[in-house]
């Protein structure tokens, strides 16, 4: 079934554990443009929950979390926000 979004970049971080799963995901999305979609592939179960949570904390939009095998998750995140600013 076709998704309603197109993936602009895929980041394969299989083998990585927390917190580097999010560190690498964050570095990847920082370099993308607003509205673009990042697909993150992980085999680390905690990351399948923590990476989406952290992405949302930073103002990004988690579109979908898909478990494809026993140990593989695909996380789709849309860049909704440039760097969070506490003060301008």
């Amino acid at each position, binding site marked *: 079934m076709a998704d309603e979004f197109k993936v602009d970049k895929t980041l394969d971080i299989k083998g990585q554990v927390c*917190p*580097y799963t*999010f*560190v*690498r995901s*964050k*570095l990847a999305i*920082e*370099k993308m443009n607003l509205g673009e979609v990042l697909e993150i592939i992980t085999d680390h179960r905690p990351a399948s929950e923590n990476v989406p949570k952290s992405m949302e*904390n*930073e103002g990004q939009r988690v579109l979908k979390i898909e478990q494809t095998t026993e140990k593989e998750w695909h996380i789709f995140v849309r860049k909704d926000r440039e*760097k*969070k*600013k*506490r*003060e301008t």
Partner: protein
Amino acid sequence: MEFTEDQILRYSRHILLPEVGGDGQEKILNAKVVLVGAGGLGSPVGYYLAAAGVGTIGVIDNDRVELSNLQRQIAHNTSRIGVDKADSAKQTYETLNHDVKVVPHKERLTSKNIMQIIRDYDIVVDGSDNFPTRYLVNDACVMLKKTLVSAAVFRFEGQVMTIFPGEGPCYRCLFEVPPPPGMVPSCQEAGILGVVTGVIGTIQATEVIKAILGIGHPLKGRLLLWNALDMNFRTVKVPRNRECPVCGDHPTIKELIDYEQFCSMSH
């Protein structure tokens, strides 16, 4: 920029912070900060800036490491006694982090050389132990519009203020002229609890990193005072003095002044 694998690991705890991230870390790596003095204050400032990955750290100091320094000057160690402090600090900081380039300036600051030395840096950190240097650094930073993180320690106390010339008060807005020589105890007789320099220097390093990142509220127009015995932090508002002789509306100090060194004078 692309981070190396080592950089991703080294700076991961910075990158995780929403206020820092990869682009903030890149700003830190590109920053140029100069330390006036590699003593009690300068040592921890440089240590944390090196750990943070500040790309260029200048160290201005023309003294050599002495045994009596080691109770507080953590950039140095026993095997470095007799070594130039600027070289000792370079070795310590560059060993901690190879991303950091330390530029030693083995000179005593004067009105003749200060402009040339600090011109190339973004932020100046004053960790000097005497009034002539403190005023010289303040005036030069005002003239060059350099951010200055100024601090001083005495016995069990310390103070910090960050100076953004043109935006807030400078050191002379607070204390217009140096105290007369007889008014202050000489360095030798004052004494200092070693860890006080660590606390105050670490606050200076925090102000530097905030200024590089442009986050939070700096000590602009606020003097932070800390007393170790009371374990009390206070901040006192400091207004910009429009009559300030160096940063006021009609400055009268247009050339740098070399006040007489009176720190080591006995009286």
